[in-house]
């Protein structure tokens, strides 16, 4: 299985390299390291969100509320910043993450304790969280002139040649890689997704693992909320509307199986990078940005076809169905 995953990630790396080469043939500056780093920076938020979503998908769940969580948490810290410009940015980031964590925990509790299917729970909370963003803000926007310079500047601070935004993404990648591959909690997330029944017999608490996954994706949603508001210098009810689908798309393209248990940090990052690359490449090769949506749609479908092939080779389809009943 490991070899298969490696193969898949190599395939994605190949696709990304080919795409970059292809575009740089049309427009040579595209392949400049500085431009590529810029694209990485642009894609940071998507990468971080994809990592959070991946953890949830690993446990056979899905978090449709992640973008609404981003909006609400982002709105709350933006309003705090506008009202009390003196609060230091790290405190605001912690607040955003805690706020996101609480929202994620709410999802998780409903999934864990009441056993409501995750797609139903997060479908409901998706509308609730975004609606709450409207309620707390009264429908008003928080604009650039209301935000403190620190609030906006923090993600743009250059550290060792890279903006802080990129460093946050890199840090997230490392943290997720280590905790998913090297800790008991991380391995449990995989186990629960691969075979819930066996996990119970192995002494794992399936519901609690799902709860933890939702807490993680919630906290990530909150973090992304601050990053988004700081990056685009606007907090409104409409920000990141429908972005949960881009996040899921990144995961799917990255080879994370919606059936749970399969997927890697590398895959999620590459999936997000692929989408980021496409988005940034279109204007360069003179394609209307309106093509973006159709292209990512086609990419998702192709990726699913690839995923299905990989998963089918393991020949556990009948087994999986039998566990369910």
């Amino acid at each position, binding site marked *: 299985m490991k070899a298969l995953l490696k193969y898949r990630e190599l395939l994605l790396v190949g696709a990304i390299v080919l795409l970059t080469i292809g575009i740089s043939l049309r427009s040579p500056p595209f392949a400049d390291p500085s431009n590529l780093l810029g694209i990485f920076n642009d894609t940071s938020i998507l990468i971080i969100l994809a990592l959070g979503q991946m953890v949830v998908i690993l446990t056979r769940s899905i978090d449709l509320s992640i973008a609404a969580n981003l909006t609400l948490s982002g709105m709350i810290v933006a309003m705090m910043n506008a009202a009390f410009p003196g609060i230091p940015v790290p405190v605001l980031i912690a607040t955003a993450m805690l706020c996101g964590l609480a929202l994620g925990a709410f999802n998780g509790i409903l999934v864990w304790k009441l056993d409501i299917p995750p797609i139903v729970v997060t479908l409901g909370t998706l509308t609730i969280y975004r609606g709450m963003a409207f309620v707390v803000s009264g429908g008003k926007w928080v604009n650039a002139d209301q935000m403190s310079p620190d609030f906006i500047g923090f993600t743009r601070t250059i550290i060792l040649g890279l903006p802080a935004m990129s460093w946050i993404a890199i840090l997230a990648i490392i943290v997720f890689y280590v905790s998913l591959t090297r800790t008991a909690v991380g391995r449990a997330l995989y186990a629960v997704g691969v075979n819930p029944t066996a996990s119970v017999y192995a002494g794992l608490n399936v519901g609690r693992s799902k709860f933890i996954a939702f807490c993680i994706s919630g906290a990530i949603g909150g973090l992304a909320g601050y990053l988004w508001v700081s990056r685009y210098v606007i907090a409104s009810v409409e920000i990141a509307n429908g972005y949960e689908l881009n996040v899921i798309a990144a995961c799917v393209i990255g080879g994370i199986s919606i059936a749970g248990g399969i997927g890697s940090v590398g895959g999620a990052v590459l999936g997000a990078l692929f989408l980021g690359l496409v988005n940034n490449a279109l204007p360069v090769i003179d394609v209307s940005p*309106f093509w973006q949506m159709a292209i990512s749609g086609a990419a998702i479908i192709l990726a699913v076809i690839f995923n299905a092939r990989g998963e089918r080779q393991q020949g556990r389809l009948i087994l999986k169905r039998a566990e369910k009943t």
Partner: protein
Amino acid sequence: MTDTTPSPRIIPNRLDNPLRSALLSWETLLLAVAVAIFVINCFASPYFLDANSLSDATFNFTEKALIAFAMALLIISGEIDLSVAAIIALSSTLMGMAAQAGVDTPGLVAIGILVGIACGAFNGWLVTGLKLPSIVVTIGTMSLFRGISFIILGDQAYGNYPESFAFFGQGYVWWVISFEFAAFVVAAIVYWFLLHRTNFGRRIFAIGNNPVAAQFSGVRVARIKFTLFCLTGLMSGIASICITSRLGSTRPSIAQGYELEAITMVVLGGVNILGGSGSILGVVIAAFIVGLVTFGLGLLNVPGIVMSIFTGALLIVVIALPILFRMIRQRHRA
């Protein structure tokens, strides 16, 4: 009292009695909620209880409910279609294109329906032909279909639909009964019959409960699922005709978020999101609940986005409450 002969054992003509009674109670609960919301609305706003305003209220949910019926069948069979709103956008765009080229109303209707079916068939082929999970496939086709609309339209809009085309979204069949509401009633009856009174319907339940067993019992699982995707596409096409006609214009962002509202109706209506159970009656009541809530709040000048809090909360609360009650009852018994 002295009669000692054992009472004859009643053998139910259907084995799913506990399930049926559970469903019945679910629908009773829903109906109670619907009545409560209706009464609250009557007290909350003096404008509510009026034939014309109630007729206006139906426009809130009929288009989504049309899709919800087909979606209910699809979800009962264990699949899902998230691309329905994108199908609306694509077929509306192509209808708009044809209208610019001078195609008249019957032609537009045919285009709307055919595009819907074609999109549904594409979903169905990906899911049944290539054996892909429907939730991801339709997330993909959702971007693809709406993406094609964006490619065609960009930031433009199509207008100039023929005058007779306005009937589907703005016309009235009789008194205050709009065409949309009539279509909703007809669709409800057709889908109720299809799901609860035909072999086809029984097979949908069978597939949803256990596709492997259904396959071994001679049910053509793939073919039925394919048909269901086509039906969902068809209903999306019909909904697209209604909404395009009602708005009189097409933008690529048309009907954004409808898929979630249609699924909310289906789940609220008691259809098990994991497949295998559900009823059309529940979906009908759920459609009314969603419609009454949004219309009632609208009369109170509550903004649309705040209404969505109520819809979302309704979805979770209505599903969570019976589970909570069951848990409390079990704890008492133990």
